[in-house]
């Protein structure tokens, strides 16, 4: 299977053009607003360059990655199997679903005062918040996938003649995998959110501290530099995840 198709180049151009046009709109719009409230991308770019040239942003980012990775890996290891269990096992589902739905509905910031009791204010607390936020997301998505998707897929398969175990292995398992990838993706997005929330709401640290310091100084350029760094980081990890998905379940990715 070739990665470069004939239409890959125009798509790529559109992708870049969209980014360029968006940045231009942001630039023009931000010029109309006082700098103390919002900064244009040109200023943010300078801040990003300076931040990395001085090493300040790189060091803070590396520090942030520590609890992000640890919390997310824990969340995947526990969340995916438990999601399958809750989705496929009737007893587990009815036992756990009310509690899971309840915890799921509350903004994670509300849990911060309670997490301090057991996890303190530093690294452990940040790992715990990243874990909680991505774990619950992975659990909910995987169990929904394991519960819901198979019936309709089986219906389709049966409509075209598939029977018994053959239908389960050939239809159900591949059908749940996209949900696992959705779960990983949303879990990762929530993990990045949790990473920065933890650094702002427990003892401030790493990128959270850089953000807070910039905000305190009304340095909107410095503040948005961290926001953009996280957005670009989020974009890259999602694209990487998409590439992995394309290798694992090629039938699921059309381009």
């Amino acid at each position, binding site marked *: 299977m070739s990665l470069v198709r004939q239409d890959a180049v125009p798509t790529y151009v559109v992708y870049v053009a969209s980014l360029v046009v968006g940045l231009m709109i942001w630039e023009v719009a931000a010029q109309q607003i006082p700098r103390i409230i919002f900064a244009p991308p040109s200023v943010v770019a300078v801040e990003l360059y300076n931040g990395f040239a001085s090493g300040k942003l790189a060091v803070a980012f590396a520090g942030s990655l520590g609890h992000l990775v640890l919390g997310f890996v824990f969340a995947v290891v526990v969340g995916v199997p438990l999601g399958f269990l809750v989705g496929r096992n009737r007893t587990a589902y*009815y036992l756990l679903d009310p509690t899971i739905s309840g915890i799921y509905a509350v903004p994670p*910031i509300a849990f911060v*005062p309670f997490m301090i009791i057991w996890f303190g204010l530093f690294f452990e607390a940040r790992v715990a918040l990243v874990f909680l936020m991505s774990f619950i997301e992975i659990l909910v998505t995987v169990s929904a*996938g394991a519960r819901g998707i198979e019936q309709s897929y089986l219906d389709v398969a049966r409509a075209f003649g598939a029977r018994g175990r053959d239908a389960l292995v050939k239809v159900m398992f591949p059908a749940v995998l996209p949900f696992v990838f*959705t779960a990983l993706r949303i879990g990762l997005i929530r993990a990045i959110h949790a990473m920065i929330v933890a650094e702002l709401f427990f003892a401030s640290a790493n990128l959270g501290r850089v953000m807070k310091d910039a905000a305190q100084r009304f340095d909107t350029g410095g503040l948005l530099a961290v926001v953009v760094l996280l957005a670009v980081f*989020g974009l890259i990890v*999602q694209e990487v995840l998409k590439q992995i998905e394309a290798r694992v379940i090629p039938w*699921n990715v059309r381009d």
Partner: protein
Amino acid sequence: MHWLRNKWTLRALGIACALLIWEALGRTVGEALLAGPLLVIPELVELVADGEMPRELAGSLRQMLLGYALACCVGMPVGVAMGRSRIFDAILRPWVNMLVVTSVASLVPLLIVMVGTGFGFRVLVVFIASVFYIVLTAYQGTRGIDPRWVGVGRSFNASRLRTFWRILLPASYPFLITGARIGLVQAIRGMVVAELYVLVGIGGLVNTAGLYISTANLLALMVTLMAVGVTANEALRYVGRRVAPWHEERYANGA
């Protein structure tokens, strides 16, 4: 042991276990750190009887539902368009992927300049908090439809409409419902986050709860949010069954 198979027995058992663990933890660390359910339930009754909390909650939910409805109306078609068209995908994917990891908090000063601190602000924050998740899930679902199925349908001489109804819609339906559910949870969280900035509604009450030594008040509000989340989720499930009866959830009838 037949009674143990009943879904209501199982649910009650699950909730009872969660409450027991909570009460035990609460007694260990004390009311100032974590009030147990025996303290929170009377507090909740008092909050409801007092009338202020239900009134604030109703106001919060009104703006949340508006923001969420807008997010669904925009998010689902956009997600489907991205899933089925390479051009849409290339234009929107970088922005959706970046904005979904961007915390609403960093955009708050800008949003306030744009729409002030009133109803519009709260609706906008809810919209932003939920729309990208709805887009991404719909996108993932529509992209994941196996083109071979569409081909199979066509080779059985199914019309385009029939293909859509029998294959495309059933196949993407679980994703749309999952997206709607994830979006709803994010909308409820976004509602609280917005209200923690402008201190109105249920978020304003959560903020005031931080003043009290006892955590019973804060936890009573969190339980309220949980109840709202669970109720909304059940309502979506009901709507899902009504809109698409072919998508019968496996355990919905206790089968």
